[in-house]
């Protein structure tokens, strides 16, 4: 046993799969501890409600307005300094055109120097002047340009007042800055929000947890049923075998996904919680475990060590537990891993069809896909609402399958090259 485990952990494929899977598992356990709170709570109301907010760092306008305790003293800069920033090439051309039309001498003036140009402009510009060869619309453009240039230096401060009258009215100058860490409510949204304003990362982590639990519950149910039926059918044989194989065949003939859809549909919207869906998935996916356990048991039950156990007077239960089960244990573990992976995928597929868990209290990977699709995240280019989900589903499935392949190579050395 110890030896087998050591061997398993020497398989690079298994180890890679194991590390990825447990990384995801740990994330789903640790992240909620670091960032507690309801993952499905709206954390964010963007400028326009009901739209996906892209990833980024956001801070509350309210807090931003109320947290100007420190002034970074931007007045040390001259107005011209600030203006230099705002002369565009287009404005420059227009300024030079007006100045030349008014026959202002530009000799010795570096027109690429914004400060110098602005000084000449301010000294010479006259709204009422009518330079030759300039149309009215061109003159109006210059007027607008002038007011732009003037206002950029001295915008009127924003007045912020609270409804509470004891608080003084506050002026906020455009040149007031505060460090980000002084703003009380800063929200970092590495994966943005969905259309309900919910933090996608937080939602995703909680969805991973729920989906893994669904996979585990469904996998345990399917493997247990498959194992018990397979053992009974293979070892006891006779009528028991006939009955179990009849049921198994019925379940095999009807594609289990169709069955899943029908059952989930008939359960109804209200009763369909995440765990109910997990149980239903488990109850419909045991057939191939049964079949393969049965065939393994049939090849084992005539082995001489089983015969020896019979001759030693051991009970049927003991023979199954000590002489059959250990031989198929590795196989059952592999089947279990695949069951988990396929259950997670089944849940995602069902939810995409709108037949997954019908809950607004918990998120699952499938539900997140469903929500993203319902609110057209894919049409609006809101990739953050569904790509990470797809990535996680793929990663979970990949890691589980990798673990399975690794186990297969250890337990069935014939596949080793």
């Amino acid at each position, binding site marked *: 046993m110890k030896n087998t485990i050591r061997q398993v952990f020497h398989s690079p494929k298994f180890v890679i799969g194991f590390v990825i899977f447990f990384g995801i598992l740990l994330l789903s356990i640790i992240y909620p501890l670091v960032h507690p709170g309801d993952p499905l709570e709206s954390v964010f109301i963007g400028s326009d409600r009901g739209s996906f907010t892209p990833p980024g760092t956001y801070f509350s306008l309210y807090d931003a307005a109320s947290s100007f305790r420190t002034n970074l003293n931007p007045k040390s800069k001259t107005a011209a300094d600030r203006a230099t920033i705002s002369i565009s090439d287009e404005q420059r051309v227009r300024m030079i055109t007006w100045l030349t039309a008014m026959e202002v001498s530009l000799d010795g003036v570096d027109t690429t120097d914004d400060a110098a140009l602005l000084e000449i402009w301010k000294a010479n510009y006259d709204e009422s002047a009518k330079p030759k060869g300039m149309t009215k619309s061109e003159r109006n453009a210059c007027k607008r340009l002038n007011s732009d240039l003037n206002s950029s230096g001295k915008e009127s401060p924003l007045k912020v007042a609270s409804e509470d009258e004891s608080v003084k009215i506050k002026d906020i100058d455009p040149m007031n800055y505060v460090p980000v860490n002084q703003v009380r409510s800063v929200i970092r949204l590495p994966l943005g929000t969905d259309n309900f304003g919910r933090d996608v990362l937080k939602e995703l982590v909680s969805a991973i947890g729920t989906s893994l639990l669904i996979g585990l519950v469904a996998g345990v149910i399917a493997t247990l049923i498959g194992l018990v039926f397979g053992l009974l059918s293979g070892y006891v044989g006779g009528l028991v075998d006939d009955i179990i194989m009849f049921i198994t065949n019925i379940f095999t003939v009807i594609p289990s996904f169709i069955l899943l859809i029908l059952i989930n549909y008939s359960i109804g919207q209200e009763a369909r919680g995440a765990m109910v869906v997990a149980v239903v998935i488990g109850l419909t996916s045991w057939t191939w475990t049964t079949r393969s356990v049965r065939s393994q048991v049939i090849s084992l039950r005539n082995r*001489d060590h089983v015969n020896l156990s019979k001759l030693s*007077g051991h009970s049927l239960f003991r023979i199954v537990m000590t002489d059959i089960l250990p031989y198929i244990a590795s196989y059952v573990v592999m089947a279990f891993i695949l069951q988990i992976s396929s259950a997670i995928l089944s849940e995602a597929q069902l939810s995409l069809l709108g037949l997954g868990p019908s809950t607004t209290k918990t998120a699952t990977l499938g539900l997140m896909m469903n929500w993203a699709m319902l609110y057209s995240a894919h049409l609006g280019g809101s990739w953050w609402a569904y790509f990470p989900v797809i990535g996680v589903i793929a990663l979970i499935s990949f890691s589980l399958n990798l673990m399975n392949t690794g186990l297969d190579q250890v337990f069935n050395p014939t596949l080793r090259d």
Partner: protein
Amino acid sequence: MSETTSTRRDFSKAPSCLKGVGVTRYFHTGKITTKAVDHVDFDFHEGELVSIVGESGSGKTTLSKMLLGLLKETDGQIYYQGKPRDISSRAKLKEYWSGIQAIFQDPFSSFNTFNKIDTVLLDCINMRGGKNLPKEKKNEMMTEACSFVNLKFAELTNKYPFELSGGQMQRLMIARIFLLKPKILLADEPTSMIDACSRATILDMLLQLRDEIGMTVIFITHDIGLAYYISDSIYIMEHGKFVESGGADEVILHPQAPYTKRLISDVPKIHEVWDLSTV
């Protein structure tokens, strides 16, 4: 030869222990039917050492599995202690198995590879009602049983079956018999992997045990020389049928069936004085 004939006894008057009439087993694989055992009649007596001799594939193992109740016969009737054998329920089967033991042909598949070999021997002690014996007593019994088959228990304890050689496994299987002391023993080529030297000693120990407890031994082998050396009576099996049977001297010294003659002529030293080292 003088040595062997002296131990040979006539059991034809002894009460019947296992008897078969028209015992048959067919195997169906696809459309092909293999007549592994084809209407054989036999009568084994209590305390007798019977050898079933036949070449590979003649149906010896199949017959022994039927005698053990591990394989259902296609046709025919087996009698146990004079009465038709009834193993229709699990309880009756368990009762039947309490008196019959076997050494299987393939030692590699005879062990549960997940259990240490101590388990195999402890099981035997428990079966004989020694469950509550002190640990030292159990160890002593196991050591003794192992010494009968030239094994050192101290070297084997806490090992797993796959750590043993084929011959060691076979000897361990025989050691079980020394602990169990069954009424009937079905030994399917029990010494095929054991070197000639140990083989003679082990067989002698087994014969001694048989004399002590009056065990019936059904010995299956393809080695007619070995069968002649140890048996009271011999059944010659060819293609699922018994072609010849009777007392060992009668069958070997005066063979009737051509198959028996061929088998005997294949053994070079059959008419010479037996030398234990060639057995």
